[in-house]
């Protein structure tokens, strides 16, 4: 399953301090027996250590560092050893055997065996079969249910056998952390899954896990400190500790990176990221997005129970024509400062293996849009306004959640383009909670009172979830456009069971074609992820995947283990990076521009600001002085 739009909610508005950077010497108090710490900055809140409640990218990053997946992901996103060392499937792809590493231990010293994996998977199956049907506020269960898993057994302490209802290759993609049974089985399903239950299992540090790092300290919402798991089965990472810290906004995060207060920052806003180019000892990385921002149509229009403003919404030809009125490259330039790719398929190009560009891509051409609208029967009336087939003027309502501020820019453009076609767009932001209610259709007692809206999705290593949003089974759930197409549904089930990659590719290609043709969504763009990291404390940063990936915040944890202590490779070891510019003068780094570079922008600002403050104060004081002098006369009159 994806981390639905709500993920981004957490990412985006949060709040922000304007400027940042820990520049004080006291900021690096670790002086004595310095542990080597990898400090990671994110603008997402660190609100949970219980993986069933993971929602944000940061939440996922935390749990996958401390818990192994049954099968993990390698540098190229290929299946690689996780909790299981090796695995194989029967020829009919119905029986799947996983060999659990012998002698593996949890971080508290208890043996980690097949039983732990079995317990975890069985827990998910039980939860799904239960009355509640889900656990926690996260989205992990479908990773297992999508595979058709039926039974989970341990034939011995190191052999896990999973049987599935239908042939599948997706078990190696199951994004489910294997949990220590001796800890978790003490709690009921409700205590694990319901954050408001009595005795809810918060999973307070120190966390018992099998991954390379486990949480040892947690200030909810603010930071999580993780220490190396001495019992980790693989090669130990160079960093003794990893600290994840929440920042209020890009600006503070960037300042902290420049000052050396953090080593890696995730999700920087475009202009700040651009400005980092050429900073000494800082590398920037632009990751392809495994997700997209979209324009979703209420494809049920104003049919019974739905409250779209026009019947035209239900017409594929109408939606197709409007696709020609969207200059997606312009949106990428303006909204993303060029850091993204114009959208088409529901499977982002990130999935190089599955993405297929539509054969006939719509281009921005208002004349063509106009021609197609007219051809489809949507003509202009005397006032120049487009009318639908009921003879009603088409006035569309466009909205987006308040958590996605940048959508307002897209809306300004769309409003302008559609106006050229004689379609008035009423654009406004909607409070996220209200939008969630408004979107709901009659199947869930909702009114579907909307025309088209913008939001975004984030996907998994497998395109499964991204494909599922357009199946009719997901209507009243994650299929917010109410799109239903029998062929698409059929293809979805076929690809789910396809064990031959070429065959699955063909199925997924057809799904992409149908999606693009019918346009329940217009995918606006695939927004790139902008990260940056310091190269003077750690080296060995490698992207996952090498093309278009980022060093960390990927899938699994190979990026953390690949890091090397920079001091161990630099001929002349530099002192611990206590301070920024001044310290680096004396360091081995040949960066004479170090002190001029990072500060110049700030200096400029500072001077101007000081000047302005002085100016204002002067004006006031002079004004008051003059005032006093003049006021002397009238006062005496009275």
């Amino acid at each position, binding site marked *: 399953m994806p981390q639905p739009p709500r993920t981004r*909610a957490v990412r985006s508005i949060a709040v922000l301090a304007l*400027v940042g*950077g820990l520049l004080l010497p006291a900021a690096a108090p670790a002086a004595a027996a310095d542990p080597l710490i990898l400090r990671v900055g994110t603008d997402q809140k660190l609100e949970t250590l219980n993986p069933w409640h993971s929602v944000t990218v940061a939440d996922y990053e935390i749990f996958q560092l401390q818990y192994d997946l049954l099968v993990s992901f390698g540098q190229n996103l290929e299946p690689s050893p996780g909790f299981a060392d090796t695995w194989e499937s029967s020829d009919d792809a119905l029986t799947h055997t996983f060999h659990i590493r012998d002698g593996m231990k949890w971080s508290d010293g208890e043996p980690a065996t097949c039983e732990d994996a079995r317990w975890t998977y069985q827990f998910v199956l039980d939860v799904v079969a239960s009355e509640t049907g889900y656990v926690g*506020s996260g989205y992990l269960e479908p990773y297992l249910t999508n595979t058709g898993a039926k039974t989970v057994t341990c034939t011995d302490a190191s052999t896990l056998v999973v049987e599935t209802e239908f042939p599948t290759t997706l078990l190696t993609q199951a994004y489910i952390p294997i949990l220590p049974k001796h800890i978790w089985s003490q709690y009921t399903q409700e205590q694990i899954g319901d954050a408001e239950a009595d005795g809810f299992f918060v999973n307070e540090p120190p966390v018992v896990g099998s991954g390379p790092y486990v949480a040892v300290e947690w200030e909810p919402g603010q930071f999580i400190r993780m220490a190396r798991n001495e019992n980790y089965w693989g090669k130990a990472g160079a960093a003794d500790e990893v600290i994840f810290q929440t920042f209020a906004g890009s600006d503070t995060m960037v300042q902290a990176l420049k000052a050396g207060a953090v080593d890696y920052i995730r999700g920087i806003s475009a202009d700040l990221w651009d400005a980092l180019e050429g900073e000494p000892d800082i590398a920037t990385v632009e990751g392809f997005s495994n997700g997209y921002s979209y324009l979703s149509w209420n494809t049920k229009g104003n049919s019974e129970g739905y409250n779209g403003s026009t019947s035209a919404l239900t017409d594929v030809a109408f939606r197709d024509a409007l696709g020609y009125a969207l200059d997606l490259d312009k949106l990428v330039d303006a909204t993303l400062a060029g850091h993204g790719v114009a959208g088409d398929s529901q499977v982002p190009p990130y999935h190089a293996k599955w993405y297929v560009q539509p054969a006939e891509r719509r281009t921005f051409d208002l004349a063509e849009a106009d021609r197609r609208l007219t051809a489809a029967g949507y003509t202009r009336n005397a006032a120049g306004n487009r009318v639908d087939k009921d003879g009603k003027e088409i006035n569309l309502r466009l909205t987006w959640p308040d958590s996605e501020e940048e959508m307002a820019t897209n809306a300004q453009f769309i409003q302008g383009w559609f106006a050229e076609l004689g379609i008035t767009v009423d654009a406004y932001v909607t409070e996220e909670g209200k939008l*969630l209610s408004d979107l709901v259709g009659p199947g869930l007692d909702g009114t579907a009172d909307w025309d088209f809206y913008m939001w975004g999705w984030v996907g998994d290593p497998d395109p499964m979830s991204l494909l599922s949003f357009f199946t009719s089974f997901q209507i009243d759930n994650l299929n917010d456009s109410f799109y239903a197409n029998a062929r698409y549904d059929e293809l979805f089930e076929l690809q789910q069971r396809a064990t031959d990659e070429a065959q699955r590719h063909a199925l997924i290609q057809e799904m992409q074609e149908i999606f693009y043709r019918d346009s329940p969504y217009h995918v606006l763009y695939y927004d790139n992820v902008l990260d940056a990291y310091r190269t003077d404390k750690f080296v060995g940063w490698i992207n996952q995947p090498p093309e278009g990936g980022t060093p960390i915040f990927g899938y699994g944890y190979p990026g953390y283990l690949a890091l090397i202590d920079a001091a161990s490779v630099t001929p002349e070891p530099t002192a611990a990076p206590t301070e920024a510019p001044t310290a680096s003068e004396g360091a081995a780094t040949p960066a004479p521009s170090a002190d001029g570079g990072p500060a110049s922008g700030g200096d400029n600002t500072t001077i101007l600001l000081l000047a302005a403050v002085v100016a*204002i104060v002067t004006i006031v*004081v002079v*004004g008051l002085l003059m005032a006093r002098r003049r006021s002397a006369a009238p006062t005496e009159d009275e």
Partner: protein
Amino acid sequence: MGLQYVLRRVATAIFTIVLIVLLNFLLFRAMPGSPERILLGRMPGVTPQILQETRERWGLDKPLVPDQLVRYVASTLQGDLGFSYSARGRPVTDVLAQRLGPTLLLFGLGEAFAIVMGLVLGAYSGWKRGGVVDYVGNGVSLILYSTPYFLLGMGLLLVFATGLGWFPTFGMSTAGATYAGPVDRLVDYGSHLVLPLATVALGLIGQYAILMRSSVIETLGEDYVTTARAMGFRDTRVLRHHALPNAMLPTVTLVAINLGYVVAGAITVEVVFNWPGLGTLTVDALSSRDYPVLQGVFLLLSVAVVFANLAADLIYGVLDPRVRT
């Protein structure tokens, strides 16, 4: 002071708190988006049955009045403010408790600084009316008074943190820091505190200065003071015995009246400095639609301000014999 006076004040405070609780109940029932949908906002696989169960569990299927109201008042009285949506699994009271300390620290110290410095500045400029300090002080006081807290904070940040690099720019301490000793810890916390504290103090100082200044000027105009001065009493004595006590009453009132306003300042100052207090909590709760937390913040702040006002009234009663009845 008279018992009647005290009782009347306490009764008013209780009445206000009752109103706050009622308002809180109504406001959050009126929030956009259906409550059960917001409760389930992050959950996939929501079915009509789940919606119904949620409604029942939260008593949302019952009429607003009296069932839901009774339920709300009862749990509020027991100190049960529900659970935070975004801080999964943590009661609102826990979340509030975690954030209360930093806010009290910042604004307690800020008020204290502002009062002391404001009174001193005001007394001096009133005493030397027409002097350089008076002009400059007056001008600066007015400018500061006209500046939103967050602008002031942004200015200080830009100059002293980003520009000069004297102070850290965010948070209350260095995350995950290990301290060699208590002094180290204090230095770290202290350096984080300087700029937000300065912002709060500067934002408040002007009002106290203006107040003290006019009190001093007023006192100096009184006949008995003129007489006293004519009789050769030292100026400082006049200041201490007449002007200062005269200014105390309105200052106490101002502190109380200001509290509500200070809360608004608190929110933005904390936001600008990423200070982990109730202000950032409010804005975070707003942006993540964490209504239970928002509700809790409103309740906590309102009740705190009511109590502060009550305290101010009572102190006022002690200070000023005329209101003792």
